[in-house]
């Protein structure tokens, strides 16, 4: 039976009840945006000497078990993995099973995100190999956590927050296992080539720098040098060769498809028109959009409008897809700054076009740095599971409290000059616009626009945007008005689900403070 520790709950600056202690560690409750002032130095891995490594640079060992043993993996340590192979990844489960084989228990698994194909981790939690997961959980893993079956507490962080936690020493990685589509025996890794090519390896960069030990696993061993190296071999302890690091069909889509839903196309068109009519779409501007159906359609509409107006962007941030690649190749943007690569066209472009640049959570998102790219972006288009009338939003849980999504770069992107949530006003019969979000992931003061199929709501804090679209034909409405209309359509407000008062996971803010709690569902 799981034995979550008793912990005191306190109200943070957002008015949410959060635990003071998480997995034995004293946490800082959220204090307000920009209020928490970190002190001290960054984490530092131990100093190594070339004397301890082979002079020929060959770090190969026969298998993962050997590598983990040589890294000194013991009970209760932290093992990290990454999601650049997405649902096709085989390496994380290989590493966890290898750890089980050498008899290690009570691990903290620290993935940059988990995927449905990794639900085998449930068995490893039941058998005690894994104590808890610090990273996004959804599907069966999410249910396992929200049903209160996980031994320790889940910790959900944004991509930038994960870098911050590693860098600040909040999470000390004992052993990082990095899946590499190409590597040389020295451990230089590249993601753009090989049978399992996935594009950028940015999610693994922090682990390679800060972990005590780093293992590279590859299915495409090339003679030194492996170029370009996205991960430097100088940070790598061991290299393991395997037959396959992932299922190519689930690593990237052959082609990403935009939505065909008329409602979602309408939302996408609204967002593009908003950028145009508000004057955000102008020469030298920048934007970020992900690979969801609405985001892809938004890019497609915006592209037409940019062509019509003769406008060229300075850079776009991805999640790259064929739609962004087309913009780059047609001269509609100078650069793609790419955090992860979603389809084959994206992979090809990243490998061949010097203006398609791989980025990391450090450059793009890390809040505890000397700024980052996210706040320099003119507009970002994001999704959400719920939005309340004060523009606060949820991206991790369903309205019934079950974990649904990771935070991804979502929280980090809220720093953009114009943050737009593009969401249907209801899904099936479930309103997306609500009185109070189930889990608070982003504060309304950072969310500027909510675009739904029934109209666009602008945050009253952004009088400049309200003024900018005066005279536009866009249906600008208040969030409350749209919400009330949706409640009429759905036959009244949904009943709020019962939950227990037992925390099972926390949501961190980008500065490492605790923003909200995910509760065990009843």
């Amino acid at each position, binding site marked *: 039976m799981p034995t979550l520790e008793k912990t005191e709950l306190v109200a943070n600056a957002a008015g949410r009840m959060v635990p003071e202690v998480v997995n034995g560690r004293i946490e800082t409750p959220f204090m307000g945006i920009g209020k928490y002032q970190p002190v001290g130095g960054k984490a530092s891995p131990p100093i190594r000497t070339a004397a301890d490594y082979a002079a020929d640079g060959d770090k190969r060992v026969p298998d993962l078990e050997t590598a983990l043993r040589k890294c000194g993996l013991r009970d209760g340590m932290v093992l990290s993995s990454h999601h650049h192979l997405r649902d096709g990844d085989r390496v994380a489960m290989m590493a966890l099973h290898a750890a089980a084989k050498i008899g290690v228990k009570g691990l903290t698994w620290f993935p940059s995100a988990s995927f449905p194909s990794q639900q085998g981790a449930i068995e490893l939690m039941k058998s005690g190999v894994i104590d808890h997961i610090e990273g996004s959980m959804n599907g069966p893993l999410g249910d396992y956590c929200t049903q209160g079956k996980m031994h320790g507490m889940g910790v959900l962080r944004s991509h930038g927050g994960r870098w911050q936690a590693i860098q600040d020493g909040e999470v000390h990685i004992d052993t990082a296992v990095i899946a590499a589509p190409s590597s040389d025996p020295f451990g230089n890794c590249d993601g753009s080539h090989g049978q399992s090519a996935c594009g950028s390896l940015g999610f693994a960069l922090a682990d390679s720098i800060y972990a005590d030990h780093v293992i590279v696993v590859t299915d495409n061993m090339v003679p030194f040098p492996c170029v370009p190296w996205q991960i430097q071999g100088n940070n790598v302890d061991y290299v393991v060769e395997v037959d396959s690091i992932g299922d190519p069909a689930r690593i990237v889509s052959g082609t990403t498809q935009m939505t065909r839903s008329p*409602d979602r196309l309408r939302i996408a068109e609204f967002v593009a028109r908003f950028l145009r009519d508000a004057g955000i779409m102008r020469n030298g501007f920048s934007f970020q959009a992900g690979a969801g159906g609405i985001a892809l359609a938004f890019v497609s509409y915006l592209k037409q409008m940019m062509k019509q107006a003769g406008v060229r962007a300075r850079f776009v941030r991805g999640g790259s897809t064929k739609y962004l690649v087309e913009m780059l190749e047609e001269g509609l943007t100078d650069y793609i700054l790419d955090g992860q690569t979603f389809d084959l066209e994206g992979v090809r472009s990243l490998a061949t076009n010097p203006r398609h640049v791989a980025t990391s959570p450090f450059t793009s998102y890390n809040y505890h740095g000397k700024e980052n790219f996210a706040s320099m972006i003119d507009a970002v288009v994001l999704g959400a599971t719920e939005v309340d009338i004060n523009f606060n939003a949820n991206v991790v849980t369903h309205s019934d409290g079950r974990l649904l999504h990771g935070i991804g770069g979502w929280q980090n992107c809220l720093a953009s000059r114009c943050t737009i949530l593009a969401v249907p006003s209801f899904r099936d019969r479930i309103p997306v616009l609500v009185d109070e979000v189930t889990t608070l992931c982003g504060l309304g003061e950072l969310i500027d626009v909510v675009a739904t199929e029934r109209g666009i709501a602008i945050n009253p804090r952004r009088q400049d945007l309200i003024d900018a679209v005066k005279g536009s034909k866009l249906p600008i409405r208040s969030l409350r008005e749209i919400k009330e209309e949706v409640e009429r359509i759905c036959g009244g407000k949904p009943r709020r689900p019962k939950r227990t008062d037992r925390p099972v996971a926390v949501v961190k803010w980008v500065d490492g403070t605790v923003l909200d709690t995910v509760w065990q569902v009843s």
Partner: protein
Amino acid sequence: MIVATETRVGEAGHSGPEIRSDLHVRIAPRDHDGIEITLESRVKTYYGESIRRQAEEVLEALGIRHAVVEIHDEGALPFVIAARLEAAVRRAGLGEGTRVLPEQIALPEPSSRDRLRRSRLYLPGSEPKYFINAGLHGADAFILDLEDSVHPREKDAARLLVRNALRTVDFAHCERMVRINQLPLGFEDLIEIVPESPDLILIPKVEESNQITEVASRIADVKADYGITRPIWLMPILESALGIENAFAIAKASEKVVALTIGLEDYTADLGVVKTSTGAESLYARQRIVNAARAAGVQAIDSVFGDVADLDGLRTWGSNSRALGFEGMGCVHPSQIAVIHEAFAPTSAELERAKKMVAAYDDAQSKGLGVVSLGSKMIDAPVVQRALRLIARASAMGLVM
């Protein structure tokens, strides 16, 4: 009071992982022990109690006292839940003569004889998920279809669904059209649909003018029964060689006819020719419709363009269609609406020229001149009339400030 003497199971609606905004209901009537409802729903946490309460109310209204009711809900809205329950009860052979009508929203303004009918969006009558946001996409009209998009076994249930949609769904500024089934089945549709005041009824596969007079008189009867005074217009669909031959008589058969349209799939099948994307094989029929419509003083409306992905093809078809004299066409996906509106809009050059003609004519009239010319062309009264019509139409489309 209705007593379940034989236990016939009634089922209606659809459920499953691919289904959205619908539900499946199975009702097994019994002689005692009251109502027992089992509910599975993806929205059970939020609306489970509401669905149960609604089911109990609908069953009570239909006089069902004892039954085992199984509901598999996929996030259906209340108007759909009511329609599916009623259909299941009727299929169980019960609830005869009783309707369970959801609360009605305010009716929009009645539609006018000569309103813009550039685009009409087809919505399959048994697919409620398409109804809910249909009004958002800016079509001039939508058609709740009871005919070809509804399986023969689903006709009774679709009728109730469409009836409830007309009562409860806000379709914004769209003209509310219903395509009934081919006669005589279509008469049964009218009994359920007409009380909800649709703006226009499309009558499929019309071949003779007496079909129109019959429909018009049935509609008038139902309207009288319910005290409905607002107009319900008619748009016959001609889909056969004989229908085309009788186009003028059909258009003149009732003063309620406001437009003629053509169904190309059936028409080309009747001719035994292949339907092509250029439409050469149906050119005669389409021109005949335009001519008959004009002669009868009604609108000529073109068929649909079926390839949703080919917006360029649609644009070409629409421009040609307008050049032939059609005033609009059907659409099968909302993405076609904007393209159709563009295709049927006067070009700015046409509009400018029309304005100049009218100005020159007015100028000449004020000077008492008999003959007016613009450039090298003489302008007479019919030309001015056409120019005025074009300006009025552009104005209705919001193209004239």
